Each structure stands twice: as C-alpha cells, then as structure tokens.
C-alpha cells in the first residue's frame, strides 16, 4: 500500500460514515489534488468508495460531490492499514523482508 493511499484511508476511517469532499480529504490526508483524485477514482472503481452529489443549501450554490467509504471499503481499509503498519514494524525491526501486496489487495 502506498503512503498516499494509506493517508486517504486513514482520513476516511476517522469517521467512516461521514461524507467527505475532495478538498476536505486533501486537507485531512495532506495530499495534492493531482494525487488525491486518481486515488479516489481507483477506490471508486473498486467499489470501496461511493460518491454522490450534495443538494445545495442556497440558490446559485454549486453542488459539491462527496465521497464515502462503503461497508466493504471500511473493512478492506482497516485490514490494509493493519497489514501496512505490521509490515512497517517488521521492516523497522529488520526481522523480515518487505511484505508483498497480495493479489486483489489494495496494493
């Protein structure tokens, strides 16, 4: 799992039920828009994240698109983050070779 993906998943998992806008995720994950949106598109195509358009509160306000983790997305994210932190601990202890991404995992 790459660091940017890890950050995005952590941002989502702060409140898995909360809808998150792209800009909010950018701030929470400290990522640039050019890194975040391709990641979101990938997560969405894997059905780990779902998106929807908000209903504008005021007239003339542009509706924003928000993203939410799906149930499966939350499960996979927790699992992926646990694996990533375990692999990092092993690597820092110098006891094991680098963990490889399993086929079908988040990579």
């Amino acid at each position: 799992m790459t660091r940017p993906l890890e950050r995005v998943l952590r941002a989502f998992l702060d409140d898995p039920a909360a809808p998150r806008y792209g800009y909010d995720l950018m701030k929470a994950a400290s990522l640039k828009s050019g890194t975040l949106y391709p990641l979101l598109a990938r997560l969405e195509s894997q059905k780990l994240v779902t998106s929807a358009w908000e209903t504008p509160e005021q007239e003339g306000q542009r509706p924003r698109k928000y993203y939410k983790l799906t149930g499966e997305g939350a499960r996979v994210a927790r699992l992926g983050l646990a694996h990533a932190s375990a692999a990092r601990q092993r690597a820092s202890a110098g006891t094991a070779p680098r963990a490889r991404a399993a086929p079908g995992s988040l990579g």
Partner: protein
Amino acid sequence: MRGEGGILRLGEYLVGRACRGLPAEQRDERYREWTAELPAILHDPGIRLPWHRAARMLSYAAGVTRGTALPSRQRMPRRVVAVIILELGIFASNIWVAARSPADWVNYMLAAWSLILIAAFIGVYRYRIHRRGSRAHAHRN
C-alpha cells in the same frame, strides 16, 4: 475578497484545461466536481489570509491538471522535443543575425525557412501519431 471573480475564472480555466485530457464521458462530471470546490477553497474559514486562500485554490486547480496529464506514451518523446528545441535555437540565431544586418534579405529567408522546418517537423510528427492511433483503433475493432 477583491478580485475574487477573476481568480475564480482563472481557476475554472485551469480546471477546464485539465479536463481536456480526460475521456469524454468523464469530462463534464469532473469539471462540475472540481469547479464546485473552487469557491469552497476560496472561502475556507481555516485559512485566515485571503491571498493564501487564493494561492491554495490555484494550487488545487493546477494540481488536477497534473493528475490528468497524458500517460507517458502519449507525450512527446524526448528525442522529438530535443529536435524542436534545436530547430528553435536555429530560428532564434537566424533572427539575431537578421537583426544585426537588417539589409541582408538572405537572413530573413533563412529565418523563414527554419520556421517552416519547425512547422513541418511538428506536422509530420502529429500526422504519424494520428495514423498510429487510427491503426491501433482499427486493430482493436
């Protein structure tokens, strides 16, 4: 904030440019999504200084351009870029020589000729890319 409209329009322009690199079916939705974020960034209560908010907004718009950049196989190869730079250098030197001796019409001819050479080179390159793309498309179908 003063000049907000202009900054927003600049952001929209950058997002519009970024969306040109996307497949047609994604373009509209992405444009709507990304331009809807621009006013939100420009009014972000978490950033105190207006110029900082404006810079953040423009950085966001420029960032999506980077995110939608063409994959490397669609970019100009370095070899082609090197030839174009070389030809531009020749053109610039011809202009410089022409400026030093304005009475000599041969220098103008050389400058015009080098400009035609650049245009022809880019034209041939684009034609070859287009033909390769058409062939690949025909092969897929």
